[in-house]
């Protein structure tokens, strides 16, 4: 039995991300981190593999920068890491990503559960998770806040899903693709031994040919990256006695529809 977690490296949340003069997205020399949402997915991957007596694999799709996330995953305790990269693959397109991701899942032995973090913090999307499930023809369970029970023999999984309105408990068929919320667990820190193992690990790279698929056509096209327009901040000092000031302030807030 195998559990597969997908991850990616993203710019550190503290980094200043901007578009440079030549239209490329940069974040200076700030480090990359594991997509913060994925840490919960990775932790759950380790736990579920251990509970089910199986193996936890982690896959990243894209260039070498994603090795950082993969090494972090290995240091946390995942059993093996794989990177999918191909010049012909536009991994920034959710459908192209999902096509490669689903092919990679099929190549891993006896995969029963695929785990994604709630979303990718850099591109702010979670479509790729749904598309991967659809491509695989597997059950999709989103916003999972707890895995209550997995029965590999019966082929079922029981989870708690979290919505703004409340919680829902669902039992569903395996294999399944899930996205997890931060409520699901407390991700561990990489231990010294984990780090030592990870730094020695050779991470195999699978091409589209290795996956036995041809390059999927991207449905989206990136025209240009632009910085957000600088926000104009106006400061206005309100004069007068406190009562007067308060009255003017309330009027202004009403005017701006804040109140």
């Amino acid at each position, binding site marked *: 039995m195998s559990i597969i977690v997908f991850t990616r490296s993203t710019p550190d949340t503290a980094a200043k991300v901007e578009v440079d003069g030549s239209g490329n997205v940069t974040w200076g020399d700030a*480090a990359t*981190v594991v997509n913060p949402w994925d840490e919960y997915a990775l932790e759950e991957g380790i736990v579920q593999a251990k509970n089910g007596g199986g193996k936890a694999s982690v896959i990243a799709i894209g260039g070498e920068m994603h090795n950082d996330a993969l*090494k*972090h995953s290995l*240091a946390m305790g995942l059993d093996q890491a794989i990177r999918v990269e191909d010049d012909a693959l536009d991994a920034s397109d959710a459908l192209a990503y999902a096509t490669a991701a689903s092919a990679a899942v099929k190549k891993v032995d006896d995969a029963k559960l695929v785990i994604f973090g709630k979303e990718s913090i850099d591109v702010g999307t979670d479509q790729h998770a749904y598309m991967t499930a659809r491509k695989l023809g597997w059950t999709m369970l989103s916003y999972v806040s707890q895995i209550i029970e997995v029965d590999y023999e019966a082929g079922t999984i029981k989870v708690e899903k979290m919505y703004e309105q409340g919680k829902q408990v669902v039992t569903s068929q395996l294999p399944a693709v899930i996205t997890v919320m931060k409520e699901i667990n407390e991700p561990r*820190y*990489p*231990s*010294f*031994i984990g*780090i*030592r193992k*990870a*730094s020695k690990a050779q991470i195999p790279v699978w091409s589209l040919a290795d996956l036995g698929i041809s390059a999927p056509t991207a449905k989206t096209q990136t025209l240009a990256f632009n910085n957000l327009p600088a926000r104009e901040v106006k400061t206005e000092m309100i004069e007068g006695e406190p009562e007067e000031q308060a009255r003017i302030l309330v009027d202004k807030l009403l005017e701006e529809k804040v109140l």
Partner: protein
Amino acid sequence: MVLPKATAINLFNPFTEEHEMFRKSVRAFVEKEIRPHVDEWEEAEIAPLHELFKKMGELGFLGLNYPEKYGGAEADIWFTVVFAEELARAGAAGIPMATLVHTDMATPALARHGSEELKERYLMPAIRGEMVSAIAVTEPDAGSDVARIKTRAERDGDDYIINGSKLYITNGTQADWLCLLARTSPGDDYQGMSLIIVPTDTPGFTISKKLKKLGNHSSDTAFLTFEDVRVPVSNRIGEEGFGFYYQMEQFQVERLVGALGGVAGAELVVRDTIAYCQERHAFNKPLIASQWIQFKLAELLTEIEATRQLNYLCAAKIEAGEDNMEVTRIASMCKLKAGRLMREVADTCLQFYGGMGYMEETPISRYFRDARLTSIGGGADEVMLGIIAKLENMNPR
């Protein structure tokens, strides 16, 4: 003069990818497991070290230098460098001090010279974070002049009977065992002292007082007394009469980690001060526009960088297995420079924060109190100068 030997270490950047991954992990740990609790621990004047060390032990943070056989990581010195630097982000110097006392001050002699049985009973649980350790050298009448210690361990068959007291002992109110320096033969010279492991649940051992301090509040400090405390002779580390030498050896890494953490902490403070002076306005311009302030801060960053490089040289010498005396010489310089620099950083930066810096709630005021210790603890500045002068053969002719 002793010329540094060529070493295989890249001093330009001694850190590999593995060290950087470790840095990330320690940083995340400090950020999530320490920082959020630091104010509470400062207030309580103690940190729950058993709980904290257990977590660190599980991650392999507490035995970086020690053999794998005892649960250690057998890692190179640069992991210790990273660990000391990252702990400095704790937000209060008490936590790094409590931790580094455990990892690099109370345990090195045991790891290097202790018997197998002793290492199994005390070093291994310390590395796992199941036991908290302390180093007990200083006494009411003997601090800088270690040879003046009076605590005695008298032989009675297969036991030592210990009588005396120890002052200013870090982790002293919660340690499970002490690495104690005591006299094992009469006289008052450097010979005749031994290092002995004393479990704190031994009858006759008392925590006489939990001491109140100027700073480092989150670290507990104790006055300890020993009245006919009986421990087996097998609790002695290494040879009888070698305690002073083992302790001097043990001081080397202690001084280096103190200096490393000190420099890392000082840099954070200076960078915070720069940010504050960019925000704060006086006379219609940000404070940082004053060349006086700019230059003072630029000077401090220069001192910080220079001291860091001195620390790295010391680490490289340890890693290269250089002569003990040479390591002692450089480690003493590191500690001296770091201690003085921290005082200067604390004073200068607090000044630029103005009244805000004098307020209890601002981190700089805590730093101002905490930073004062490095020039005193682990050997005062003057003691460092004495060691350097001696090793440079500055004897009267």
